[in-house]
């Protein structure tokens, strides 16, 4: 299972990197969203998968999955949402001001010296 998920993580990261390197602002944001999915899966996978029941105390269950990575990922999911939302509004405002979402057109032409 872990090997399979690792490969999924690799594919997600690969797509994320390719998207982040593209010119369109929207594709860049989609890329960062994919990035966070990959990172969340990575944190969970490195801790080991399916090592027990869900980490909720129930009578008769002694083996649980590791709760700590889950807590970390939970925080991360919320923060990545915040970042994505910020990013999206930034893109929206940029588009309003500059009428483009092409990163190469946004580059300033003058050098600062």
């Amino acid at each position, binding site marked *: 299972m872990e090997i399979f998920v690792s490969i999924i993580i690799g594919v*997600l990261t690969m797509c994320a990197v*390719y998207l982040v390197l593209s010119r369109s602002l929207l594709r860049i944001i989609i890329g960062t969203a994919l990035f966070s999915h990959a990172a969340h899966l990575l944190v969970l996978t490195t801790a080991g*998968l399916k090592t027990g029941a869900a980490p909720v105390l129930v009578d008769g269950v002694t083996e649980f999955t590791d709760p700590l990575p889950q807590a970390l990922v939970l925080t991360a999911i919320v923060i990545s949402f*915040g970042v*994505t939302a910020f990013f999206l509004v930034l893109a929206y405002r940029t588009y309003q001001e500059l009428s483009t979402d092409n990163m190469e057109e946004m580059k*300033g032409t003058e050098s600062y010296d």
Partner: protein
Amino acid sequence: MSLLHLAILLPLLAAPFIPFLFRGMKQIHTGWFVLIVPVVLVTYFAGFIPITSAGDVVTETIAWMPSLGINFTAYVDGLSLLFALLITGIGALVVLYSIYYLNKDKESLGHFYVYLLMFMSAMLGVVLSDNMIVMYMFWELTSISSFLLIGYWYEKERSRYGAQKSMLLTVFGGLSMLGGIVLLESMIGSYSIRDMIANSDVIAESPFFLVAMILILLGAFTKSAQFPFHIWLPDAMEAPTPVSAYLHSATMVKAGLYLVARMSPVFQESSVWLWTIAGVGMFTMFWGSFNAVKQTDLKGILAFSTVSQLGLIMSLLGLGAAALHYDGMDDNIFMVATIAAIFHLINHATFKGSLFMMAGIVDHETGTRDIRKLGGLMTVMPITFTIAVIGSLSMAGLPPFNGFLSKEMFLKATTKVFSADFFALDTIGILLPVIAFVGSVFTFIYSIMLFTRTFMGKAKFDQLPKKPHEAPIGMLISPAILALLVVGLGFFPNVLSNSLIKPAVESIYPTLVAQGQEVDVHIYFWHGLTPELFMTIGVVLLGSLLFWQMGKWMGIYNRIPHRLTLNGMYDGTLVWSNKAAYRFKDNYMTGFIRSYLIYIFVFLSGMMLFSIWWFDMYQFSFENLAEIAPYEYVLGAVVMLGALAILFMKSRLPSIILLGVVGYGVALFFVFFGAPDLALTQLVIETVSVALFLLVFYHMPDISKKEVRMRFKVGNAIVAVLVGTTVTLLSFMALTNKSLTSISEYYKENVYELAAGKNMVNVVLVDFRGFDTLFEIVVLGIAAFGIYTMIKFRTTRRTKGEGEHEAKQQTRQ
């Protein structure tokens, strides 16, 4: 904290009050308050004279960073006391002079005196610190305060240029010196100068001996404006004249001399030491005096003359090292070089200080320092004229002034090379008296120029910006005191012999003193018909002849094209390095975010893959892995295909939907992994995200219609595959190496006892790691604020076209 430390830091402690005094007491010149500091200090340090002349030293230590061997150890011996007295004594006179020089209503005196006091502390720190690192710290502080003072009139372009030049050169030297200090410490394991002197035999055997010596000398040579680093000093003349008199002739530029004198016991056994210092010093002496003659600015002449005189003292310190090798006679003739160095150091401070103040007075009262415009001021400024004559003749080395005495000793020291039979002094060394003679001739010429061109000759008062008149009495006090010292020391040089010069010389020759050699300081006016007397007579005759025939040989100065002068090279280097830096920067700072991200990704992958290879981590073992259900394969395939499909989507709507597919797929994985909380959060967040994406997408209507063709980029693809592979390998590595047990055992055991909760993830979030959650909320809050500001506050004024666009959008909403 002893009184001695307090004395070093007193100016720095007084500095914060100066701006308030300047603001609060407008009617009193701030300088009067500042004057108290050097006056108190000079009396305090004068109290040490009996101690050092008895051959004793005073040491006080404050532990600063003992574990690193860095302690603020103040150390007073003959040499440091001499400098401390110069710093505070000249400092008092300069502050007094500045009260009349700087107008309290026009100048920002608050800044000026803060910088000056900062310098005073720094300089005292340099000469009184025993720990080299502390000394280095103060050393750089003098560079910084000098920079600030040169740039005091910062609205002038020349001031900024001069300030930058001095900063670049002296800080370059300072950093070299730091390298030397670190090397020395690595040899003996201590930063203390006294330890270095005590272990000089260990240092001499080190393979890094020469490197350390050259690095230390670079510091000394840049600070003391030795050739070829002297070029900063003439440009430093843009500073107000009190600063030039204080920093750039009497004290700061002598820090290099102090360093050489102080480090002499460590290095002076080496022939390289003697030859480098004597050679560089002697050439600087010639070059400075040669260039001084062509200057037309009074302060320019004085600047090059300072360069020349510093070279003279430097060469004497170098020659003085020969005293260690000389055992020809009972009377150690090379010791005279060091005695002359110390004596000339004092004399130079007196006559050059008075000359600088004279130049300042002329500038102040006539409005110009250009000797082509000046002339005939003798009648209107008789007192200034007298001071100028005394100072100039002393500098030229004429009797009965103190300059004559030390100059004679200098010539004597150079002629002694004939009787030395080591280090090739009796062969190549013959050049030394020749260069000394030529340098002295030029010194004579510019000294004569200095007062004849300014005060004698035809008066051209109509060409002057101001109507000239004698300076106010307060302005004349300081130069007059210095001029009196010039005459007084000329007649009674031996008042200093045992009180100041002897202890200072003794601290340069600790080994000789230990052997029982007597440092015999007796300075005579008349010492018979010696070679040096004939040399002086020759200097006067040849100098007068050349001065008389000046018009005929001045042409030689125009022979060197500007590009090849040192200044030309400095400017060229500055321009070139600026351009090269920009060109280099423009190569990689393209302005495209894509380039920067590629650097980050490639570097990350490169580092990872390199470490995996370097630490032999590429053997993966997979044990105890979880089993995998068939439907999980399907889900994984959906997630991967969804992500890959985004890459090939031409329009935006499908890619947003595909992103949603991936997100929900990940949420399902969380369910399989036994993480219900995650799955729930992910589902909610994913829904909101997709909604947000669509909303923004909706607000970018123009773009949605355009089908932007996304070309496949091979370069990006390679980087993407590389990073993807790296992350997968990273995950494999994490599976292989499970050497540590998870810290979450603690949470599992205590979740109910300590937090009375059954859902571990929740308890961890709100209880055990509550701060994480708190800051998570903070991050969300910041994001929310950011979004709100971006939407609500718009500072850019929009043009008509954009306004219509806005209106169109609003109607659509």
